[in-house]
């Protein structure tokens, strides 16, 4: 008795999916290294649910120029007193502009406030940022650099992991998970004082 059932019908135009190998890595390719690259107009499959980026995201990404990126880095550096990676900044800025079409204007507004105060660090001008969209955007920019994502969604694009700033304030003690900095059993129970702050 032939127990093999009929193959499921395949939609026209769709090539036959490759058979999962019984011997080699056959995990779904939904999670590939490309995920850290900005997906422009691509579909990302998460557990079978397709997440379609909105059209404005594609249009805005095209409008996110080098000029926009440079100003984004400028305001980021004023808001955050730490080393910031330009590549990460380009991607965060472009992605944020997709969610927030007013980002360019808001960045310009924040820069204007900072220049007005001759600000060198965030404490110089942040009290002058008015409540509302400008402050929200300033905090969102800070959050994106610290957390490596620009949205709260459970399938949010991740722009940085080891370069996120959230690990900075404790990097003298706490490991960035999966980025061990010690050798075999190479850690101790020594703890630095709470009020010392690592440089990052």
């Amino acid at each position, binding site marked *: *008795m*032939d*127990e093999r*059932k009929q*193959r499921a019908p395949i939609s026209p135009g769709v090539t036959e999916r490759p*058979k*999962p*190998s*019984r*011997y*080699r*890595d*056959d*995990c779904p390719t*939904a*999670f590939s*290294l490309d995920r*850290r690259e900005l997906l422009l107009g691509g579909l990302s499959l*998460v*557990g079978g649910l397709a997440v379609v980026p909105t059209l404005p995201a594609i249009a805005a990404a095209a409008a996110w120029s080098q000029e926009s990126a440079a100003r984004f880095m400028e305001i980021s550096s004023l808001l*955050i*007193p730490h080393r910031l990676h330009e590549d990460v900044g380009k991607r965060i800025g472009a992605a944020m502009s997709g969610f927030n079409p007013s980002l360019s204007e808001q960045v310009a507004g924040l820069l204007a406030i900072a220049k007005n105060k001759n600000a060198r*660090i*965030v*404490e110089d001008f*942040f009290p002058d940022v008015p409540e509302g969209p400008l402050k929200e955007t*300033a*905090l969102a920019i*800070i959050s994106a650099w*610290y*957390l490596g*994502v620009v949205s*709260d*969604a*459970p*399938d949010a694009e*991740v722009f940085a*992991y080891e370069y*996120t700033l*959230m*690990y*900075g*304030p*404790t990097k003298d*003690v*706490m*490991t960035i*998970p*999966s980025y*061990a900095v010690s050798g*075999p*059993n*190479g*850690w*101790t*129970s*020594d*703890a630095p004082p*709470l009020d010392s*702050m690592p440089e990052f």
Partner: protein
Amino acid sequence: MASGDSADVVVVGTGVVGCLIAEQALDAGLSVLMLEAGPRVERWRIVENYRNLPPSIRLFHWDAPYPPKPWAPHLETRREKESEQYLQLEGPNARAYLQGYVRYAGGATWHWAGICWRLTPEDMRLKSLYGVGRDWPFGHDVIEPYYTRAEYALGVCGPSDPAQQWPPNVKRSKPYPMGPTPFGAGEHRLTEVAAKIGLMNIHAPQARNSGVSYDGRPPCCGNNNCFPVCPIAAKYDAATALPKIEAKGGRILANAVVHRIETGEKKTVEAVHHFDPDKGSHRVTAKIFVIACNGIETPKLLLFSKDDRNPNGIANSSDQVGRNMMDQPKLITDIEMAEPLWTGVGPVQSSSIMNTTQGEFRSNHAGALFRMENFARSPLGAAAALKKGLVGKALDKEIRRLSACTARLTIEHEPLPSPDNRLTLSSKKDWLGINKPNIYYDVGEYVRRSAREYTVPLLHKLAEGLGATSFQLSPEFLNSDHIMGGCIMGTDPKTSVVDPDCRAHDHHNLFLPGGGAMPSGTASNSTLTMTALALKAADAIVDQLRHG
């Protein structure tokens, strides 16, 4: 009939239990075919999956780096709706049976913490000593040599000082293969504070290479990523056993979902049938069949395979298949303290308070294990500080403070087996048309009384000792992912599913090893005991095939 695949021993499931049995059988000169429902994967891909998760998901959603195949579903928790998809849970403590496991080749040891407690002699005699639960059908002296073999098979590190060992006052036949991993600052502080109130926080024996390479795997270098995946395989996971099994001539078929255990005359298991991803079915024969799919999937398969000869399911004349479902009902508290309890140094779990699991009180309420969680709290500190709208130096300072001065403490209570805590077949079916598992769970008064009168008050004391300024207890019991009891062991075929070798009472050539066989759940992580049972079953299988 598609392909006449056959072997001396067919093992269904490539988790730690299945893999250990496969290797023992191969070493004894038997042929072995393993059937795994899910895919083979490479370690680097799981690590990349993990690193690409948003920070809100990266912690606690251990399933997220392991997206399941449609034909081998397991619990997904990224979105609340997802978590209702596969496991159908009901009862007053449904939430406590939201069990995470991985239907990939290698099984749940991909993401386990690696903790390897042995049972105490008392843990195995609850009925005789305390009048509750069930006794094991053999004593600690019988399982001790299997514990030793398990520790050497997995590579378990632990203390050589008997004063630091668990169980206390029980002689070990061999030392641990490796010495303990060092404590970080937080564990050191917890140990000191706990000692002041009579709680002994001791090094947890763990399947983690400590200071040296072991079995071709490197030593732990403190990635602090044990769950969801050790990036370097310093922590034992069964995926590392697969190439060894193949090198010894074992065959492993991935993406092969067994959907039917076929019985013949004289209660012999004749074959198992498995689907391929195109939903074609294949029949596989063997002399001995081992179903090692875990404490949920094994009883599910036994029930699903019911036939005219076995109308209540395979191996189920006792009606105990799927009953007595156990896990350690867990409570957690998140505390804020005046002083730091630094986490994120070394493994994510490295110690526990165990003396609270033992005592005469067990005739009245559950014992429980206490521990601090040692995963790096920096992402939590950062998220909380950002929510406060802080910027600049104030932000960094608050991130550091919240990361260092908050902690999560965990209690895991021992469960009792109850026939009402039961796995049955849901009317809902998965992609292959196999019924999803439905589980009714109630932790019971034995556990609730323990929480009220014993563990939660003690937890408050511990938190006080740590200088806690706030204390937030989970509102309900949670899962610990130690699935036990669904194929319970005993000498009486009327009240148990398997015999002391994990052989099904009803079918002489069917073995059901794993957590499902354990007659007592106890408060300690179950994997080492499951592994010892696997080796005991392997001895019985080899003996049976050699001598009939």
